[in-house]
C-alpha cells in the first residue's frame, strides 16, 4: 500500500472517530415528556450470559407489561434502555455513567445484577443521588440503611442465604447441635459475590462446631477438577455452592463425575436455575438450592404477560421460558422497582420522579399478601416491608429440589437468624462508613426525606 494511501485511510478513520466524539460530546436534547426512564445493565454475552439472559428478559418484560396493561405507573410511561456489561466491572461503570442522565428526570434506579459492579457504583450513587436495587445480591452490609442510604438489597442478602442453609442442614441432622464435628464445604466463585457468605459461615461454625472447608474457584469457573478432587478426598457432609454462570453447571457435572451425592449439595439462589442443572442431565436430580422471592412456575402475572406482551409479539425471550427461576426473579426485581416508584408517587404525585424521590419510595415499601395478590404475584412472594434501618424488607427463603424436569419446593419457610446477622451487618457498615468518611444517618430525623 502506498504511503499516500495509508495517510488518506488514516485521515478518514480519524475524521470519522472525531465526528462521532463530537456527537457524543454534545449529548442529546431532552424533551420534558411524561416518562420514567429505567436503565438496564444486563449481560447477554460472556461466561455468565446463560444466567444473565433469562433474568434480563424477565426484567424488561415486566416494564413492557406495565406499559401495555396499565399504561405506565400512574399514567407515567416507562422507557428503558439496555447497556451490555458482560459482567465486567469497568463496563458496568461505563454503562452506569452513560445511562444515568437519560430520561426527563434522569435514571430512576439501577439494578446491575453483579456484586462486582454493585461495589463499584455504590461509591458513585450518593453523589449522583441514584438508588441501587440489589435484590438478592450486592453488599450484605447494605441492609443497614443508616450507612447505605442508596443501596437496597431487597428480599435478602448472602448472609441470610448462608444462615438459612445452615438452619436447613441443621434441621436435616436433627438439630443445630448435631452439626458438631460435621464438615461443610463451600465451593465459591472467587469474587466478592462468592466471598460474601464466608464471615457468616465462619461465625456459625464457631457457634455450632462444624468444620468449614473453603474451596475457591477462579473465574469463569470451568476449571474445577482440582476442587472436586479435594472434595472427594475430604468427604464433606454437605457442599454449599456459590457459583454463577457456567461455574454452576460445571460444579454439578464434576459432582456427578466424582460421585458426590447431589442430595447433599445446596446452592445459593443464584446457583439454582434451569441453565445450571439442565447441562448435567439426569445427574442433577436431587440437587437442592434456595429460592429467592419468587420460585419457578406461572401465576396471574404470567397470564397477563402472555396476553399483553407475548401474544402481541413483544416478548423479550421465548414464550416457553417465562416461568423459569431466573426469569421470575428478573420479573420480581423489576416489580420491586416499580413498586418503589408507585410508593414514591403516593407522596410526590403521579409525575416523572427523580432518583431521590424514588429512594424514599424504596425505603417505604409495604407489600402485604393482599397487595401482592393484587399485582398478580399471589403465591409467589412473601410480604416485604422496608424501613430506613432495614433496606432488605424480608429475609426468608425456602429450599427447592430439582427432580430432572422442574424445581419443587421441598421445605418450609426459613427466616434468617437476625440475632447473629445484625451485629455483623452493623460492624461491617460502620467499618465502611469509617473508611469512606460518610456520615451515619439518624433514622428518626431522616425518615421523611
Amino acid at each position, binding site marked *: *500500500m502506498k*504511503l*499516500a494511501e*495509508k*495517510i488518506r*485511510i*488514516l485521515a478518514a478513520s480519524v475524521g470519522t*472517530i472525531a465526528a*462521532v*466524539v463530537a*456527537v*457524543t*460530546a*454534545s*449529548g442529546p436534547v431532552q424533551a420534558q415528556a411524561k416518562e420514567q426512564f429505567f436503565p438496564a445493565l*444486563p449481560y*447477554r*454475552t460472556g461466561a455468565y*450470559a446463560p444466567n444473565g439472559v433469562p433474568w434480563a428478559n424477565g426484567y424488561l418484560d415486566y416494564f413492557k407489561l406495565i406499559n401495555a396493561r396499565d399504561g405506565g405507573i400512574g399514567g407515567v410511561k416507562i422507557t428503558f434502555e*439496555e*447497556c*451490555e456489561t*458482560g459482567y465486567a*466491572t*469497568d463496563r458496568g*461503570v*461505563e454503562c452506569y*455513567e*452513560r445511562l444515568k*442522565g437519560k430520561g426527563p428526570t434522569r435514571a430512576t434506579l439501577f439494578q446491575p445484577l453483579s*456484586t*462486582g459492579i454493585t*461495589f*463499584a457504583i*455504590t*461509591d*458513585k450513587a450518593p*453523589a449522583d443521588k441514584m438508588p441501587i436495587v440489589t435484590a438478592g445480591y450486592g*453488599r*450484605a452490609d447494605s441492609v443497614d440503611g443508616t450507612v447505605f442510604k442508596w443501596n437496597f438489597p431487597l428480599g435478602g442478602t448472602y448472609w441470610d442465604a448462608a444462615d438459612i442453609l445452615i438452619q436447613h442442614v441443621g434441621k436435616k441432622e436433627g438439630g443445630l447441635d448435631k452439626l458438631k464435628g460435621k464438615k461443610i464445604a463451600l465451593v465459591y466463585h*472467587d*469474587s*466478592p459475590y462468592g*466471598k*460474601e457468605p*464466608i*464471615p457468616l459461615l465462619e461465625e456459625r461454625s464457631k457457634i455450632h462446631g462444624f468444620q468449614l472447608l473453603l474451596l*475457591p474457584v477462579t*473465574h469463569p469457573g470451568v476449571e474445577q477438577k482440582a476442587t472436586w478432587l479435594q472434595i472427594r478426598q475430604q468427604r464433606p457432609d454437605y457442599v454449599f455452592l456459590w457459583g454463577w454462570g457456567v461455574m454452576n453447571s460445571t460444579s454439578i457435572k464434576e459432582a456427578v463425575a466424582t460421585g458426590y451425592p447431589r442430595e447433599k449439595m445446596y446452592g445459593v439462589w443464584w446457583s439454582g436455575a434451569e441453565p445450571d442443572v439442565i447441562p448435567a442431565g439426569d445427574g442433577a436430580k436431587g440437587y437442592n438450592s434456595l429460592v429467592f422471592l419468587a420460585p419457578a412456575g406461572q401465576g396471574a402475572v404470567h397470564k397477563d404477560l402472555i396476553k399483553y406482551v407475548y401474544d402481541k409479539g413483544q416478548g423479550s425471550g421465548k414464550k416457553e421460558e417465562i416461568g423459569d427461576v431466573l426469569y421470575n426473579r428478573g420479573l420480581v426485581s423489576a416489580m420491586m422497582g416499580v413498586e418503589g416508584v408507585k410508593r414514591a408517587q403516593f407522596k410526590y404525585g403521579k409525575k416523572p420522579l427523580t432518583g431521590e424521590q424514588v429512594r424514599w419510595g424504596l425505603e417505604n415499601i409495604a407489600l402485604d399478601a393482599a397487595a401482592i395478590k393484587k399485582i398478580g404475584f399471589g403465591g409467589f412472594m412473601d410480604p416485604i416491608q422496608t424501613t430506613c434501618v432495614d433496606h432488605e424488607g424480608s429475609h426468608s427463603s425456602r429450599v427447592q429440589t430439582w427432580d430432572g424436569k422442574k424445581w419443587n419446593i421441598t421445605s418450609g419457610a426459613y427466616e434468617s437468624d437476625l440475632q447473629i446477622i445484625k451485629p455483623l451487618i452493623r460492624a*461491617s457498615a460502620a467499618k*465502611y462508613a469509617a*473508611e*469512606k*468518611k460518610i456520615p451515619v444517618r439518624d433514622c428518626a430525623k431522616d425518615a421523611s426525606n
Partner: protein
Amino acid sequence: MLYRENGQFKTSYRQDQQMLPILQDRIFMGLLLLFVFVVAPFVFSDYLFLSILIPFLILSLAALGLNLLVGYCGQISLGHAAFMSVGAYAAYNLALRVPQLNFLVVMILAGLIAALVGLLFGIPSLRIRGLYLAVATLAAQFFVDWAFARVKWFTNYASSGSVSTATIDLFGWQINSPVRKYLFLAAVVTLFAVLAKNLVRSHLGRAWMAMRDMDVAAEVIGIRPVYAKLTAFGVSSFYVGVAGALWGFVHLGSWEPLAFNITLSLNLLFMIIIGGMGSILGSFFGAFFIVALPILLNQAPALIGVELSTAMASHLESIIFGALIVFFLIVEPQGLARLWAIGKEKLRLWPFPH
C-alpha cells in the same frame, strides 16, 4: 509550506538539544496544553470525562511505563498489571494506615513500592530473554493476583476482598468532580510524560536502547546489563505503580483483586504495540485506541440509527475492534506513532508530493 524549519537557526547547544526544536511544534504543543487545561473543562461533558478521558489518561501513563520497558529496553513483560495492582494496594494501605500523608506523597511512595516489586520480578531478565522472560513476567501477574486475594492484611480483612477509598483531598482541594479528576490527572500525566521524554534522551535511555538493539554488543562496549535492565524494570514499574494508584483512587474508587487481571496486562501490551513501541507519543495513541474505540463502537449503532440488540452490538464491537487492530498492524507494523511521524514528514514537503 507551513511546517518548515527555514530560518530557525540554533545558536547554542541548549537550543539545539531542546525537545521541540521546530517553532511550529512548540506552538502546536502550547495550543494543545491550552486546550487540555483551559478549554476542555468547559467544553466536554461529564460522561466524556468519566468514561473516556480519565481512563485514557491513567492507562496512557501505564502504557508509557510499559513502553519504557518493552519499547525502549526490549524486555517483554506480560504481567505489568500486577505492578499496577501493587501500586493500587500500596496506596490503599498507606492512605488507610498513615492517614496524615498527602495523596501526592502516597502516590509517589506507592510507585516506589511497585518499583521495588518490579525490580524483584525483573531479576529473571538478567538470565533469560524474549518469550521465556514473557512467561516469567506472567508468573508475576498470577503471583500478585494470588497474593492480594489470599493475604487478608492487604485488603484490611474485608470479607468480600473488595477495598474502598475515600475522596482525595489535596491541600483542601477536594477531587470529587469529574472535571477536577481530569485536571489532576492531566497535570500528573503531563509531568510524567515530560520526565519520561527526558529520561529516554539521557544516557540511561540510550543504555536501554542499546540493550534492546543488541545486548551482547552493548555489554561489549561497556554498558552494564544488570544496571540497564534493572533500572528499566524499576522505572517502568514506578510509572505503572503510580498509574495503578491513580486507577484505584481516581477512576474506580472501589475495586476487587480481579480488577487488575491478565486482561489488563494484555491490554497494556496491545496499547504499546498498536501505538508504537519505543515512542512516548505512541503510548498515548495506543491508550486512546484501546480505551475509546470499544466504547465508540458500542455506541455507534445507536448513533447512526441502526436497531441492534445489545448482545449483537457487543459482538460486533469485538469483531470490528479486532479487525481494526489487524488492519492497523498491516498498514503500519510500527504503530500509530510511526504513521504520525510519516505524516509530519509529508507535511514538511506539503503541498509538494516529494
